[in-house]
């Protein structure tokens, strides 16, 4: 093939220049020389000609290989331009995409491809529209007239894609800005917003148009325009004034974008800091975030904002205090001038303690000493100070190890807590912390023992010292040592013995910590079963609670403890009723009697208890079937989690599908998607017995929230009956690809009762280009005709 079609009838902008004329001339000469050869048809083809030929092959693999080959050639693929343009109509996505890439890489000389590409701007596939717009940009200015014509298209998607292409053409920004500005008045909001986005991409030449867009009625356009101006940099005074006005816009996105734009402008520093401080106090998170971003943009000058941020820390507005702490944290060590302010705020506002502690930790090594000194202040929270110190990280390790010997006891305790709070705790501090286990101060021994529990592994001698501390005279110290030793080495036989013995300790804190430590063993804690079961009647309710929680994790190996758990169901403490019923559900062998014992709490007023009752009954399966009526009531409960648990309970306990399926179908209309998800999943678990739910599930495929659960259920049910036929027929031509797929598949499952679907299935079969769809239509038709 002699590809010489490069001279377009469309007028070319002069920018294309001599290079293209020379190229065209050369190709004409080549063509003439080929034309004059004695036997042109036998002339060996060039690789590009061969690829161009292959691109028209009926073999898909050959076409694909050719398209891939041409896409790699860059401008050399020019000789195959005709074939590439034809391939923009190829039905195979890969041939289309690689042909488009090849055209893009040819660049300006691919002008003849413009019409075909503009055609693709209206494609149903979003990636194809995006890609076609990009290729038009790569072709460059010669595409502009056709893109401008496209703005008159009735298709909003085509108009938006044309604007997208123009937005990339920053070399022609001045010519394009008026066109894009006009599109801001488009009737379609997506098109208007795309126009604003494209103007933003054009940069400085679009400044005036973006400035005008700041007055647009559509808040999204205002926000995009303001954000676009942040890339322009210097703007006129009038635009700047308008941006300042937009700081009071009712729409948060607009305010946010205005802050960002002003932080990029040449606004005087003092005024900008005022704006930043106001933004940091804004009601909306994004605007506060924009304030922090603007602060970071100030670079070294950001320290000028510290006094204002300190005032916010001291103010009455919680939100502003949190944001100020966050802003100071984002400044890192540069905010060290705010150390005292942060410490004051930590004391005054423990509610925001975490944010303030984080800011203190970001100050780095310079904050270690002030933080340690603050431990002497009895009004400060030692836990928060320790959290700040731990957050400083490696640079705090040495001073903290030194502080373990500080004159001040709180500083020593704080240092131990901080070292243990580091992630991971520093290996270099292990010996120093172990040394603290022998110190006289109870608080220090307790803190050091807790800190050592956070190490993944400890030296054997450290573990031995910790074990010896389990006999400490102080209960809190024993408790800390018990729990730490369990965390580090619970599988050690000696440690287990110590833990089991500690369940009988005089101090309730030790008993509780010992049980919590044994709980880390899970099902391997059988040797502790008797001791822990005994603890269910402990005088201390926290100990009873820990014991019930531990038994829950032991599974059936703890089933002998059920009789001792039953009294907890009558406890006045809701935490214990809840833990008791959860444990019974987890460990009991299901029986009707146990289900009855549990079900008496179906009327409990505490939502956590109710939730655990439902979970326990669910675990008991058909033994709990007598409770269906009461459980159905709970599908209307105000608490979403309870409604979901009730739905699952019905599915597992009611073995008669004629009763459970209608209830579950009703739950598919719940206002909360998680309940609908639970219902869909339960229906799926019932398989073919739930085919009456197909129509309802099928309609849920249109919802982003329900799509996964509904399709999962439909796949599991794998059947349908006549009740779904009309809904499925409507789905055959849905925009939703998944719905189309399920509609075809499920109509086939219905069989002869779906005969009303035959005409439309036959039409779709005749029209489709897709081999996969053809096969699916064919199968469905055959199934309905009774041939399959």
């Amino acid at each position: 093939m002699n590809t010489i079609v490069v001279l377009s009838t469309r007028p070319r902008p002069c920018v294309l220049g001599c290079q293209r004329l020379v190229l065209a001339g050369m190709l004409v000469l080549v063509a003439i020389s080929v034309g004059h050869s004695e036997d042109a048809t036998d002339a060996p083809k060039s690789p590009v000609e061969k690829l161009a030929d292959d691109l028209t092959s009926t073999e898909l693999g050959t076409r694909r290989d050719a398209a891939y080959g041409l896409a790699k050639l860059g401008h050399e693929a020019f000789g195959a331009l005709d074939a590439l343009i034809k391939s923009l109509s190829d039905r195979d996505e890969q041939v289309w995409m690689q042909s488009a890439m090849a055209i893009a890489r040819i660049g300006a000389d691919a002008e003849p491809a413009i019409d075909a590409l503009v055609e693709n701007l209206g494609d149903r596939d979003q990636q194809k529209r995006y890609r076609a717009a990009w290729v038009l940009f790569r072709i460059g200015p010669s595409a502009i007239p056709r893109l401008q014509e496209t703005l008159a298209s009735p298709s909003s998607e085509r108009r938006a894609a044309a604007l997208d292409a123009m937005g990339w053409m920053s070399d022609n920004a001045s010519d394009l800005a008026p066109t894009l500005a006009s599109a801001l008045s488009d009737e379609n909001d997506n098109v208007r917003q795309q126009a604003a986005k494209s103007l933003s991409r054009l940069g400085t030449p679009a400044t005036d148009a973006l400035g005008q867009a700041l007055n647009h009625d559509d808040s999204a356009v205002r926000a995009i325009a303001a954000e676009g101006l942040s890339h322009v940099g210097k703007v006129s005074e009038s635009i700047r004034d308008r941006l300042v006005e937009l700081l009071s816009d009712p729409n948060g996105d607009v305010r946010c974008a205005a802050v960002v734009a002003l932080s990029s402008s040449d606004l005087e520093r003092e005024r900008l800091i005022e704006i930043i401080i106001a933004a940091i106090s804004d009601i909306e998170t994004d605007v506060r975030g924009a304030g922090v971003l603007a602060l970071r943009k100030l670079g070294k000058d950001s320290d000028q904002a510290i006094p204002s941020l300190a005032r916010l820390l001291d103010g009455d507005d919680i939100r502003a205090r949190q944001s100020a702490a966050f802003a100071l944290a984002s400044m890192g060590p540069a905010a060290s001038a705010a150390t005292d302010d942060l410490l004051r705020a930590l004391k005054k506002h423990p509610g925001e303690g975490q944010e303030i502690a984080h800011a203190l930790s970001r100050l780095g090594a310079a904050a270690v000493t002030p933080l340690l000194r603050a431990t002497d202040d009895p009004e400060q929270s030692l836990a928060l100070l320790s959290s700040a110190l731990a957050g400083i990280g490696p640079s705090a390790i040495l001073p903290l190890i030194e502080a373990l010997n500080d004159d001040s006891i709180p500083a020593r305790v704080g240092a131990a807590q901080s070292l243990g709070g580091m992630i991971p705790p520093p290996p270099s501090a292990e010996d120093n912390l172990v040394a603290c286990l022998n110190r006289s101060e109870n608080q220090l021994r307790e803190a050091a023992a807790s800190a050592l529990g956070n190490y993944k592994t400890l030296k054997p001698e450290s573990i031995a010292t910790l074990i010896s501390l389990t006999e400490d005279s102080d209960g809190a110290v024993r408790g800390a040592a018990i729990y730490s030793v369990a965390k580090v080495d619970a599988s050690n036989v000696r440690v287990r013995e110590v833990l089991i013995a500690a369940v009988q300790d005089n101090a309730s804190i030790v008993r509780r910590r010992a049980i919590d430590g044994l709980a880390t063993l899970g099902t391997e804690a059988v040797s502790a079963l008797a001791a822990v079961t005994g603890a269910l009647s402990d005088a201390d309710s926290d100990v009873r609670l820990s014991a019930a929680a531990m038994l829950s994790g032991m599974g059936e190996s703890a089933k002998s403890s059920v009789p001792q758990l039953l009294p907890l169901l009558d406890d006045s403490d809701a935490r214990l009723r809840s833990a008791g019923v959860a444990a019974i559900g987890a460990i009991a062998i299901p029986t009707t009697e146990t289900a009855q014992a549990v079900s008496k709490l179906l009327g409990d007023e505490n939502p956590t208890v109710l939730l655990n009752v439902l979970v326990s009954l669910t675990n008991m399966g058909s033994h709990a079937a007598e409770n269906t009526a009461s459980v159905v009531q709970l599908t209307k409960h105000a608490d979403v989690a309870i409604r979901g648990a009730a739905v699952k309970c019905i599915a597992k306990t009611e073995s008669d599908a004629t009763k459970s399926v209608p209830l579950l179908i009703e739950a598919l209309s719940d206002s909360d998607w998680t309940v609908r998800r639970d219902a869909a999943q339960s229906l799926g678990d019932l398989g073919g017995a739930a085919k009456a739910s197909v129509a309802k599930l099928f309609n849920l495929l249109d919802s982003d929230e329900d799509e996964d659960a509904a399709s999962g259920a439909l796949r599991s049910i794998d059947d349908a009956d006549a009740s779904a036929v009309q809904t499925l027929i409507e789905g055959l031509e849905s925009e939703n690809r998944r719905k189309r797929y399920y509609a075809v598949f499920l109509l086939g499952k219905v069989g002869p009762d779906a005969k009303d679907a035959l005409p439309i299935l036959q039409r779709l079969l005749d029209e489709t280009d897709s081999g996969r769809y053809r096969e699916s239509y064919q199968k469905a038709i055959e199934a309905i005709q009774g041939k399959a």
Partner: protein
Amino acid sequence: MSTAMSSKKQSGSILDRTVSRRNVLRGVGVSLALPWMESLAPRVSAASLGGTPAMPQRMAFLFVPNGVHLPDWTPQLDGFGYDLPHILSPLAPVQDDVTVISGLTHDKGRANGDGPGDHARSASVFLTGSQPRKTEGADIRSGVSVDQVAAKLTGRATRFASLELGIEPGRSAGGCDSGYSCAYSSSVSWSSEATPLSKEVNPRFVFERLFSDKPSGTRDKDALRREALRKSVLDYISDDAKRLQSTLGSNDRQKLDEYLGGVREVERRIERSNDEPRISMDVDYPIPQGIPGNYGEHIRLMCDMMVLAFQTDRTRIATFMLADAGSNRSYRHIDIPEGHHELSHHRGDAAKHAKIREINRFHVAQLSYFLQRLKATPDGDGSLLDNSMICYGSGLSDGDRHNNENLPVLLAGRGGGTIDAGRHIRVSTETPMCNLFLSMLDRFGSPVDYMGDSTGRLAGLEI
């Protein structure tokens, strides 16, 4: 398949040209590269002229299979101070260095007419942005991956152009996923469109390669002798290390101690894994010597190896597959006995969602470990993390839908101060992932006009 650690064929000559005798400790069969130290810097350096020496950029790509549970991955808030959903919560200690990027697409991971095989496509497209040819035969085709684009342009500066690491040995031939060659599922790194690079899964071999002075290839006899004698590489370079200590300033002496201690710690952990029983509950293939049975420890060892390689400038580019595409590994160590792939087809099941998100969180926790190690390693005036770009993600978005838009992707590190990290950025729908790669290559000093299906640079990585 080509080599597992892309070394240059004439590594000796290049090593001699680029690595000074003064920043390598030598012993018999051992060559221990040193981290950057002030005392070892060239006498006339940018620092001595009043500036900060330009530290090399490092780049790593970590792949996880089967997508993620996006509702527990994507932060609700944009910009600085974004929230950390459950899966990302282990990143709290390094959040300020992590940029979460939502909205990127790998269009070439879609079927595009090729039908099933999403898992294989998701790995082969991950760093190439190219549609793999559907074949189980030898005629595989994808594209050059971003790490290899960088390696070709800058790899000559280091002993190894790049490191390719993994956990699962995988297969390089035969079919693994609905008509796709196993090569697609088990490699993310491609040196040419037909050459996937096989990955090294044994930490011991990686360690030996990093610290052996032999050019390349299989294990050398010195390494085998060291192993037989249970000797550390440090035993062989101790004389040289003592001599060097006496010439260093106090800061650098401490730095050297810490570094040698770190090397020894990694070596010890590898030795421990040699002694472990060769059984793992998580996988159904035998575990060779040198590979820990504990999955988390295996990942962390590989991460430590990358840190050492970056710290000593043995390479500046690495890829790491935390599991192969479509991996059905179970996670019993976090109480999840079911296979990952099996769970990823969750069909909306809340219980499966809960397990998937724990698996996703486990992977992110290992990433957090890697990032914290990089952050704790000094590099010039900052840390290794400051001078790195660590891209972590999956080629699939949701493991059940098998979709390739809105991919879970994050970029950690500051790229030598060119990235304003610590933000959540949302990009327009259908923006190619390869646009991110172009922006990374720019910062790495290997700018290219395009790669894969890129349509331009990704704007917004800097304020």
